[in-house]
């Protein structure tokens, strides 16, 4: 601790504290336009200039970055200091007369009318005052170093590299946050952030609870939006978290687990509704996907379960459109199976919670399963309008001037054989269930197959519906094909049982189909060396012959047929066996 005298007051502060901080602790105000606790003092506005006296020597220093020393005497309000500040303020004020922070500071320092006119005067109220906060926070805190100053002298300005949107900018918004004049504005870039982006209606911050019903219900840090994780900067949240629960080190990591069997339940995704522009999804307000609507219905959702239009009003009529992308020659020919029933549920809930009219637009009502048909009948009794026909277009319509626009659903009612236009306030689309976009990757990883619709293919549709072509790999749920919850549970249980039965056996017999090099015939031409996708073949330098690792070999036999000396034999599928087979089938 050192003691300094500030304006006659003795202040005891830690060594290396800046005069500004020391004065602050003594309740003495020092003006500044560029100081921020977030980064190293930049010391450019010079308004915080104070007079320090050491012995007989007096000098002017900037208090923001001058470290206190024992026995220092500081004058924050001497005539000299006042004169300097005023003159600096005059300079600043003359250049940016309309910026609020400058105006306020000028008033505080008693500057009313500058004595000179700045040729570079900028009358904008949100002009850049070159305080450097944005540049400093970007470099020191965010550690992205995107923003920087360009030009020298009076021509200095803050720019993005080449005045273009920079790839290194993580759009954290810190610069806009620290800008004292509002000069920096963040344009929305609509960066895609995962598959949930389209329907997530809540606020999006780097720290959030993924869904309100998340278990465990703790906040997580989104690695992609967190400045700390992106650049190593920021870290502000940890300074505020008292129990020190924030751990930036706990990043996503790859864990290798050795297992004997794998059950693939990678589920599904819904079709991208934006590609069917006639339905207006993403273009028209109040056209929702079923998942978004489900989210709205949720009592922990953004509206607390109340059904509301974007403008906050209650819908007068709601249209529910089935088979968006399902049973459609242009998209998916198959039926997504679950839509009819959840659409009926939606209709029921809309009826239950609002007085709105509900219209169902369907191709065929597929109320299969236990109790479903009865539910359908009940809905009919509730007065839900059922229209059999495919919707052609959803567009905006206006009733009268000044009235809120409505959504016009055009369709053909095949039961009455007429073309109809139905006005509603809200439309819910039932998108097709389709395989995950990366299903083909999963397929490759596990060497399993996909059916033509790209869902994973079971070994046998009737006899072996949960296993795959690869031993020990099983599938269940929508990864295998569209199905509802009971079906998924049933299939998953079946797969689990299959897995358990193998575990209880304790051991697994592997195929004896392997390739083997006959040392006495191999001359080490290395023809086979590059062929094995499992790297089972290696070249033994000392013996000058190739060698196949039994454990890595999967027995495909490519090397067997490639061996120009026929020195590799494929057990189970030897040349002899195949030729004998050939002879056999051609003998008749």
């Amino acid at each position, binding site marked *: 601790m050192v003691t300094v005298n500030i304006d006659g007051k003795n202040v005891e502060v830690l060594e290396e504290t800046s005069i500004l901080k020391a004065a602050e602790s003594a309740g003495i105000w020092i003006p500044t336009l560029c100081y921020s606790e977030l980064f190293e003092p930049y010391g450019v506005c010079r308004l915080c200039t104070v007079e320090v006296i050491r012995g007989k020597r007096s000098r002017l220093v900037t208090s923001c970055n001058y470290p206190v020393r024992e026995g220092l005497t500081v004058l924050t309000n001497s005539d000299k200091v006042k004169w300097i500040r005023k003159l600096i303020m005059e300079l600043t004020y003359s250049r940016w007369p309309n910026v609020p922070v400058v105006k306020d500071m000028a008033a505080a320092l008693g500057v009313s009318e500058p004595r000179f006119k700045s040729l570079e005067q900028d009358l904008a109220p949100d002009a850049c005052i070159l305080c450097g906060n944005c540049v400093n926070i970007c470099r020191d805190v965010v550690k992205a170093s995107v923003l920087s100053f360009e030009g020298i002298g009076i021509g200095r300005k803050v720019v993005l590299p080449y005045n273009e949107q920079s790839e290194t900018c993580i759009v954290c918004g810190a610069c806009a946050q620290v800008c004292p004049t509002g000069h920096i504005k963040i344009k929305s870039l609509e960066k895609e952030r995962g598959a949930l982006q389209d329907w997530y209606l809540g606020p999006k911050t780097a720290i959030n609870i993924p869904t309100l019903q998340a278990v465990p219900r703790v906040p997580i840090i989104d690695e992609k939006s967190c400045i700390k994780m992106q650049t190593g900067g920021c870290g502000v949240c940890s300074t505020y978290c008292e129990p020190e629960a924030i751990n930036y080190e706990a990043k996503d990591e790859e864990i290798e687990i050795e297992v004997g069997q794998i059950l693939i339940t990678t589920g599904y995704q819904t079709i991208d509704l934006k590609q069917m522009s006639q339905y207006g999804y993403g273009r028209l307000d109040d056209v929702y996907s079923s998942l978004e609507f489900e989210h709205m219905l949720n009592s922990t959702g953004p509206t607390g379960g109340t059904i509301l239009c974007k403008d906050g009003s209650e819908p007068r009529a709601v249209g529910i459109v089935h088979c968006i992308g399902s049973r459609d020659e242009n998209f998916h020919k198959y039926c997504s199976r679950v839509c009819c029933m959840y659409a009926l549920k939606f209709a029921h809930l809309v009826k239950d919670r609002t007085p709105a009219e509900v219209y169902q637009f369907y191709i065929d009502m597929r109320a299969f399963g236990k109790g479903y048909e009865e539910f359908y009948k009940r809905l009919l009794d509730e007065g839900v309008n059922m229209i059999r026909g495919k919707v052609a277009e959803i567009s905006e319509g206006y009733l009268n001037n000044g009235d809120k626009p409505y959504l016009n659903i055009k369709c053909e009612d095949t039961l009455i054989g007429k073309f109809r236009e139905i006005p509603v306030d809200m439309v819910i689309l039932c998108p097709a269930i389709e395989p995950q976009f990366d299903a083909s990757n999963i*397929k*490759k990883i596990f*060497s399993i*197959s*996909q*059916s*033509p619709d790209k869902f994973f*293919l079971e070994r046998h*549709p009737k006899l072996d519906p949960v296993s795959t*072509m*690869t031993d020990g790999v099983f599938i269940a749920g929508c990864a295998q094909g569209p199905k509802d919850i009971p079906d998924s549970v049933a299939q998953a249980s079946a797969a689990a049982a299959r897995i358990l039965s193998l575990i209880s056996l304790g051991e697994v017999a592997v195929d004896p*189909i392997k390739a083997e090099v006959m040392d006495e015939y191999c001359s080490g031409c290395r023809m086979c060396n590059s*062929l094995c*996708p*499992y790297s089972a073949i290696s070249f033994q330098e000392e013996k000058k012959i190739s060698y196949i690792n039994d454990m890595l070999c*999967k*027995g*495909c*036999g*490519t090397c*067997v*047929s*490639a061996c120009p000396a026929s020195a590799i034999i*494929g057990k*189970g*599928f030897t*040349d002899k066996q*195949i*030729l004998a*087979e*050939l*002879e056999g*089938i*051609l003998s008749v």
Partner: protein
Amino acid sequence: MEQEEKEFNPKIVAFLCNWCTYTGADLAGVSRLKSSPCVRIIRVMCSGRVDPSFVIKAFKQGADGVFIGGCHIGDCHYSEGNYKTLRRVEFMKIFLEEFGIDPRRLRLEWISASEGDKYAATTLDFEKQIRELGPIQLVEV
């Protein structure tokens, strides 16, 4: 002459990969699809196991056509076995032509386990092709 042609029952040897085409053929059967009855199937683990010598041997022993079925490119159960098949068949076609055997008698198709219909259609088409080409009739030596 016409009499003879009617009696021509092509012998087609099919080397089918265990994971895709063989299963596809199975599916064709399960699905009650009509595939060529002339096809005599030899199951191999991977189409990459098919040694060009087998093809020659098959023709030599009286096969009128040889059919090789494998997984689609990129979908090989063994990652890339079918690439080798692709290259070998490509080479064999040139080879067969030089041997004076119509290269159309050798056919390579990618048929996945789910493409029972493709299996059925392809084998029928191949049979038709072979019928058009007629019996192989190698010169006696």
